[in-house]
């Protein structure tokens, strides 16, 4: 079920009423309702893959309970590895099998051998990369004794399948989300309003920003051979906003929806395009994944301790694995590698933590230095996104090659360019609103409170009207494919 669909618009209020008015007296029943609704939500897309979630839930629940009983380090390690193998095994089969097979075949054929193995004709279950990481984090935390194993299967099932963040995150930690299922939840007016406001802003980002940028980005990327450098640059910028609007929009809707049901999910985006360097960008972009890799991969590998080579190795590992997490394609690996190259100079010169606060914390506008840093970081990000969006490596290289050519100085010209001007105007307004809200968790969190009640309602209507005018056919979220 898509957040931007009529199905969800019917599903959400019905669940809300059942949750707060029918099942509110018994926590177990309320959790059961959340689990059942989450399975319904996921099954709406393809019920066959519910068995994967159920199996993954059952395995990690059982392993968690066993870890709680066993003290022998070797037995505990075996249990941990069973969980890792099952979860990564799912990912390996459904997401990476064909990629490795094709690359092995190519490698063998270069060496003069023909490998006879057939690709699997399977579809990638939506959200598999998200929920497998979520369940893995539970088992690892229980193994590390950072978390008591749960004996409440319903709560655990609801935690794994929690519908707002099941298919595209934020990837929640068991230490944050699971305990919320143990406590009675009370509806708070301010939390409800806050949730709705975040949903509204998420919809705006998805429907107005991402879906409209997608029209131009898709056209330009699909016809990049025939277009000028300036047009391609515009296409890359449109994609940069498309992916931000799409993914952070989804996160906003997920977090807002969870708040309607009394849950607090972690912040997943913190205005990443206002970052002053790449290290700051990665503290603000897809925070739940970045911190997941930091805690469960980077730090166990030694992190930034040790010698220079260890730092370089660990940085490349974490960024390349992060790239590969997004998809079984060399483009994602190069995208990760490129970000590692951006990041390394900061790490090696110990400047990676110089921009920890919010830009222009005490002023309306950034100073010239900050503006320059922000522009440079944004530019580097745009270049990296070209690899993320391109069909393959050669497409990305050709695309970038054409951007950095004489035609960069021509006026952009392509089908639909006249309408793109309006989109650029909307993007500027969007950036201003985001800038004004950069100190908060999402742009509308406090901006609207400063307005009088009448003006605030007028602002709601304006946003809804813009969403209505821009909304059309339901568009998938990009991160569903990961």
């Amino acid at each position, binding site marked *: 079920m898509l957040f931007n669909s009529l199905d969800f618009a019917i599903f959400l209020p019905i669940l809300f009423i059942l949750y707060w*008015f029918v099942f509110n007296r018994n926590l177990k029943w309320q959790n059961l309702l959340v689990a059942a609704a989450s399975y319904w939500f996921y099954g709406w897309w393809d019920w066959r893959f519910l068995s994967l979630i159920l199996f993954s839930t059952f395995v990690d629940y059982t392993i968690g309970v066993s870890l709680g009983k066993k003290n022998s380090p070797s037995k505990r390690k075996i249990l941990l590895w069973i969980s890792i193998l099952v979860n990564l095994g799912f990912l390996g089969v459904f997401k990476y099998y064909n990629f490795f097979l094709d690359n092995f075949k190519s490698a063998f054929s270069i060496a003069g051998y023909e490998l006879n193995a057939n690709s699997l*004709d399977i579809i990638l279950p939506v959200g598999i990369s998200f929920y497998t990481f979520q369940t893995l984090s539970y088992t690892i935390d229980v193994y590390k004794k950072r978390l008591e194993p749960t004996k409440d299967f319903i709560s655990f099932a609801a935690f794994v399948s929690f519908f707002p963040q099941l298919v595209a995150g934020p990837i929640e930690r068991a230490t944050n989300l699971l305990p919320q299922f143990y406590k009675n939840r009370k509806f*708070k*007016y301010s939390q409800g309003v806050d949730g709705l406001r975040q949903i509204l802003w998420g919809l705006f980002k998805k429907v107005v920003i991402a879906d409209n940028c997608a029209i131009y980005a898709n056209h330009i990327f699909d016809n990049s051979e025939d277009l000028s450098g300036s047009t391609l640059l515009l296409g890359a910028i449109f994609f940069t906003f498309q992916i931000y609007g799409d993914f952070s929009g989804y996160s906003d809707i997920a977090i807002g929806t969870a708040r309607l049901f009394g849950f607090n999910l972690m912040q997943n985006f913190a205005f990443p395009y206002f970052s002053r360097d790449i290290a700051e960008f990665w503290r603000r972009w897809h925070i739940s994944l970045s911190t997941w890799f930091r805690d469960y991969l980077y730090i166990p590998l030694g992190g930034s301790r040790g010698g220079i080579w260890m730092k370089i190795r660990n940085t490349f590992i974490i960024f390349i694995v992060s790239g590969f997490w997004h998809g079984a394609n060399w483009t994602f690996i190069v995208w990760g590698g490129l970000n590692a190259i951006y990041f390394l100079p900061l790490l090696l010169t110990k400047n990676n933590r110089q921009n920890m606060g919010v830009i222009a914390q005490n002023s309306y506008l950034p100073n010239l230095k900050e503006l320059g840093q922000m522009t440079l970081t944004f530019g580097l990000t745009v270049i990296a996104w070209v690899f993320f969006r391109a069909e393959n490596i050669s497409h990305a290289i050709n695309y970038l090659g054409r951007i950095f050519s004489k035609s960069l100085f021509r006026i952009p010209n392509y089908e639909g360019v006249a309408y793109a001007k309006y989109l650029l105007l909307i993007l500027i307004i969007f950036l201003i609103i985001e800038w004004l809200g950069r100190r908060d968790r999402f742009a509308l969190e406090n901006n609207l409170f400063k307005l009088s009640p009448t003006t605030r309602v007028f602002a709601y209507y304006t946003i809804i009207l813009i969403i209505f*005018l821009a909304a*059309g056919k339901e568009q998938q979220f990009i991160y569903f494919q990961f």
Partner: protein
Amino acid sequence: MIKLFLSKVIKILLPILLLMGVLEVALRRIPNDYSIKYSHLNNNAGKLKTLVLGSSHFYRGVDPSKLPQPAYNAAMFSQSIDYDYKVLVKFEDELDNLENIILPISYFSLFTNLETGIEFWREKDYNIYYELGEFHSLELSKRNGFQNLIRVYNYYLKGESYVQVNELGWGKKSGVASRYELIESGVQAAERHTANNFDLLSDQLNYLKKIIDMAEKNQWKLYLITPPGYTTYTSRLSDRQLNKTLEISKKFDDKFGFVYYKNFLKADFLNASDYFDADHLNENGAEKFSNAVNSFLIENN
């Protein structure tokens, strides 16, 4: 607290929902090809002798006035065999005088369906106007709000029509494709129509068999026809997919006495001036092709 929250939310949303409801009703009342075809079939199914089904190849390419009368063209853009079947099921009990069904077996017919194609959004039209499938489809969700408002304005205030078909359901189109357009549209259509895999074959074949069973039960003659395409299209088709299409169609022709198959893919009585793009006939081409279809019907009568 929660009641206060709900009442405020309802107060804010109610005017929007009301406006959306009014707009939805206004959009549905604008006549379109689906509503027109459904209404015609609803009122005249009992009189029809010949019924044309299928996708845009027949929507554009078959003029019912050339066929045994009364005839009607119920083809629509991207209408796949499963939807041909659903339309037939909807009207089966009323088609008392039907004798001929003309169904295209285009290069893509057995390997694609509406649901998984790029025009999947047209499913809503069948839900809304043919009352097939999901009940909660909305006109509002087919295009963006701005386009919806323009549509309402154009119809109600400027009197513009959104019906493209004539009284017999034929969506004729004049104009001749340039050499460049024939090449470009041929390349694009061939690519679009070539299936990545044959996953949908068994499903679509199943629907075709159901149509054959229905024809047998009702003593209808079923004419399976592969529509014509210009050489810039036909030369780019996958042999494997095309041969499979031809082989299956011939097999049905051989097996059932009431099923007839004819391949017009490379019809030599048509030339470049008969196409408005590489796989769609213009008005002139459609008239020639419809005459040829009629001759095929007479041959097998």
